Structure formats: structure tokens, C-alpha cells
């Protein structure tokens, strides 16, 4: 066999083994984070501080995006539904799209690029400037003190951010459909109330946001902790956080949707 083919096959094998090794390493890191989370709950102030950075500071981008997404949904929904004379159902369409899909997915994508990348960059830079090593030398476990509070802050803030996204989105849809176009106010809200089911729509949407919150934050803290301690390493880790968590959100969304809404009308 020509030498180049052998080298090629060896390279592929090497990459596969590396990826599996890294997946195992990431899973072990995730378990360690959960095991060492005690301090985050005993000293909840550590989590509250991170909630401010990951949650509160993400509010602006979530609210503005939610408003625009809702407005576009209102516009497109009206445009399509009025062809069938069903323009009063625009409220239903806006609410269901947001609560079931767009709220959790778009909010999680925005969260990954705003908060996830910030978490990775912060932990990566702490590693690059020896702060994590210094902490280890002070007999303080960085996974318990730095990683776990950031992880829990992300997991807690994600459902609230997605809920905020959906609420503002519905308001955006209302602004366009009712205030601008003139769809009937009463039917906009009443049809929405009739169609949106608490158990199937809202609870399932919340479950999705919780899963996305865990996935995005777990990826963000791992990439930061695993980053090479150089400027290039940290920038690469930040990019990987956004790319990997975006793909994870979209992949997980398909899996969850197919389990939750299979066979439903």
C-alpha cells in the first residue's frame, strides 16, 4: 500500500482516538463539577455573583432580540394567515412558535455567544495567567471555587432568559399584529389562551431550556478549563464554545422535539 495512504489512515485513526479521549475527559470533568458543587450551594453568594454576569448582563441582548423576533413572527404570520382568512390566529402562531421552539433555541444560541464565550474566555485567561495554578497551590480546588459556581449560574439563568425572550416576543407580535396592522385585540389573546397548553407547550419549552442551559454552560466551562494557556489557545477555546454549543443546541432541539411533540396535532 502506498505510504501516503497508510499515513492518511493513521491520521484518521489518531483523530478518532483523540476525539473519544477528549469526550471521556469532558464527561469526567462534568461529573467532577457536579460532585464538587457543594460549595456553590453552601456559599450561594458565589453563584449570585456569577448570576449577575451571565444572567443579568445577558438581559439586554435577549430582550432586544426577543422583541424583533416576535415582531417578524407577527408580520410573517399575518401575511400567511390572512391568505386563508385566519389572521385572528396570528397570536396562536406567535405564541406557539416562541414557547415551543424559538424561545428556547434562539435564547440558548444568544446565551452561548454572549455568556458562554465570556465564561470560556474568563476561565481560560485565569488559566493562562496562572490564577488557577495559584489557587491549587493555596489548597483551593478551582473546579469547586471557579467552575461550579459559573456552571450553576448558567444553568439557573438560562430558563429565565428564555422565558423573558418568549414574553417579549409575544409582546413584539402583539405590537405588529394588533397595534400596527389592526388584528382584533380580543381574538389575538383569546385564541392564544385556548391554543397554548401549559403541560405540552410551556413545560416542554422549559425542559428544553434547562437541557440547553446545562449543555451550553458545561461546554463553556470545560473549554475554558481545557484551553491552552496562551492567547491563541484562549481564542480557539472561545470559538469552540460558540460553535460546539450552537451545534449541540440544534441537535438536542431535534431530539427533544421528536420525543416531546411526536404525534401531536
Amino acid at each position, binding site marked *: 500500500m502506498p505510504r501516503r495512504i497508510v499515513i492518511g489512515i493513521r491520521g484518521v485513526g489518531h483523530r478518532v482516538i483523540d476525539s473519544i479521549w477528549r469526550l471521556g475527559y469532558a464527561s469526567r470533568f462534568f461529573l467532577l463539577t457536579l460532585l464538587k458543587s457543594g460549595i456553590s450551594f453552601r456559599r450561594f453568594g458565589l453563584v449570585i455573583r456569577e448570576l449577575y454576569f451571565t444572567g443579568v448582563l445577558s438581559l439586554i441582548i435577549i430582550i432586544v432580540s426577543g422583541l424583533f423576533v416576535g415582531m417578524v413572527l407577527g408580520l410573517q404570520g399575518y401575511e400567511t394567515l390572512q391568505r386563508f382568512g385566519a389572521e385572528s390566529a396570528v397570536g396562536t402562531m406567535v405564541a406557539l412558535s416562541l414557547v415551543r421552539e424559538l424561545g428556547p433555541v434562539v435564547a440558548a444560541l444568544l446565551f452561548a455567544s454572549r455568556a458562554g464565550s465570556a465564561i470560556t474566555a*474568563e476561565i481560560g*485567561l*485565569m488559566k493562562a*495567567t*496562572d*490564577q488557577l*495554578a*495559584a*489557587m*491549587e*497551590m*493555596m*489548597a*483551593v*480546588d478551582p473546579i469547586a*471555587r471557579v467552575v461550579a459556581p459559573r456552571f450553576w449560574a448558567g444553568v439557573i439563568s438560562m430558563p429565565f432568559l428564555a422565558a423573558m425572550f418568549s414574553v417579549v416576543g409575544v409582546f413584539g407580535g402583539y405590537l405588529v399584529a394588533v397595534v400596527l396592522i389592526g388584528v382584533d385585540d380580543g381574538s389575538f389573546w383569546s385564541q392564544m389562551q385556548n391554543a397554548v397548553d401549559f403541560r405540552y407547550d410551556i413545560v416542554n419549552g422549559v425542559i428544553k431550556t434547562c437541557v440547553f442551559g446545562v449543555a451550553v454552560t458545561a461546554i463553556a466551562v470545560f473549554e475554558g478549563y481545557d484551553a491552552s494557556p496562551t492567547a491563541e489557545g484562549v481564542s480557539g477555546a472561545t470559538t469552540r464554545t460558540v460553535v460546539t454549543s450552537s451545534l449541540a443546541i440544534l441537535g438536542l432541539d431535534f431530539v427533544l422535539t421528536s420525543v416531546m411533540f411526536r404525534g401531536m396535532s
Partner: protein
Amino acid sequence: MTPETLVEIKGLNFSYGERSILKGVNMTMSRGKVIAIMGGSGSGKTTLLRLIGGAVRPSSGYVKVAGKVVHELKRDELFEMRRKMSMLFQFGALFTDLSVFDNVAFQMREHTDLPESMIRDLVLMKLQAVGLRGVHNLMPAQLSGGMARRVALARSIALDPLLIMYDEPFTGLDPISLTVIGNLIRRLTDALGMTSIVVTHDVQESLKIVDYVYFISEGVIAAHGTPAEVRGSVAPFVHQFVHGEEDGPVSFHYPAETYASDLKLEKGFA
């Protein structure tokens, strides 16, 4: 190992994969002394500190601190031992999200149940010892390089350790800060009765303050002695290092193919 010995290193070998970093290193460090470990960049000095702190495991041999073999300790025992040792990193490694005060208070809050009023007093005393009580409200980003290193020094003596390791404490400092840090290392060591290990390649500054010097070259101890012995040494490596000569046992050129063959000037090409 006598009661005065705090750190004992025997037959220490360490390698990163195939690359051998330390080869059979032996050292003894007594309580209350300042010991310098010198050597060129990449000679294994920082690795030696990491081995003493238990951050990496030796390939063979051992490091004993206060009578205990570091690499045989369980994680809990290692963390217990680290409460008695401290490390000053090259650029301080202050926690950038905490103020100067919180940085110095960090270990007290993590490892003790001291009331906040006592922590405040202790932190101000530690900062006073390095002359920076006035900056306790500032963030690390607002400090100069020398000040950051002094705050890191205050942080490293927060719990009155037995042993402090300094990784290149003089790098990138102006002459005044250099003298200040050097004198602080000496003064704090004497005042607190601890042992200081200073990894450095700043010969002139460190010879002024240390009690004993080890030279490491290519993973082995090339020479050792008191500052007076080192200054008077005629050993080629020590002479080259202390006087900063360009060529000697440490060659100017990194090993490579012959110059002529790299430039393709051998027969057939010329």
C-alpha cells in the same frame, strides 16, 4: 534528614514524555534559609518547584517536605500540606476579579473561620509588611508590575507558611522594585522563620540576599555553594553564568545540522 531540614530531594528524575527534564537531582534545604535555584531558561527550574508543590509527579526519586514524601500523599493530605507552603508566581497571578484586599484575604476566608473584623486586621498587617496598605481598595489591573508582585507576596504569607517558593520574582521589574522585592524576600524569611526557594536567573540581585545557591544545567546540578563560593568559582559553567558570557559550556548555537549542509553548500551543490 536532620530536624533543621525542611525540603529534601533525592535522585529526582522527571520527564515530559520522551524529553528528560531533571536527571538525578539531590538537594537539601534548611529551615529559615533563602535558597536560590539558578539556571538558563528551560533548564527545569520551574519544574522543580512544581515537583516540590506536588503539581506533577516525579518519574523516580522523591521530594520530602517536612518529612513527608510529596508524591505519595493523597489529594486531601496534599492540600493539607499546601496550606503550609506558598508560591509566588512569575507575574503574581493575582485574582483579577477580586480587589487587593480580597486577594490577600482569600486563603483566610477559604481555610479559616476567622471573623471578618480579624481578617481585616490581618490583611492590613500583611499589606503593611509589603508597604502597600494604601492600595487595599484597588483592583489588580490598577497596580504596576512591581506592586502586583508585592501584593502577591502579601497574599502568599497570609497564613504564615513554612515554605515559600518564588518563580522568577525579579522578571520585568525596574531597579527600585527589584531591590524592594529582594529585600522583602530576605526580611520576611527572617521575620517569619520560614524557608524561601527562589527560582531565578537574576544572578546579581539574588546573590545579595540568598544563603545558598544551586545551579541547574540540562537537568543536573552543575554546581552549588554559598554566594561567596559561587562568586569565586572557576567552574566553567558557573563562571559563564555569573558573568553572563555569551559562549562557554552553554553554547550560543542550538544543536543543528552543519551550517554548510543547511545552506546546501556541500559537494554537488556548490
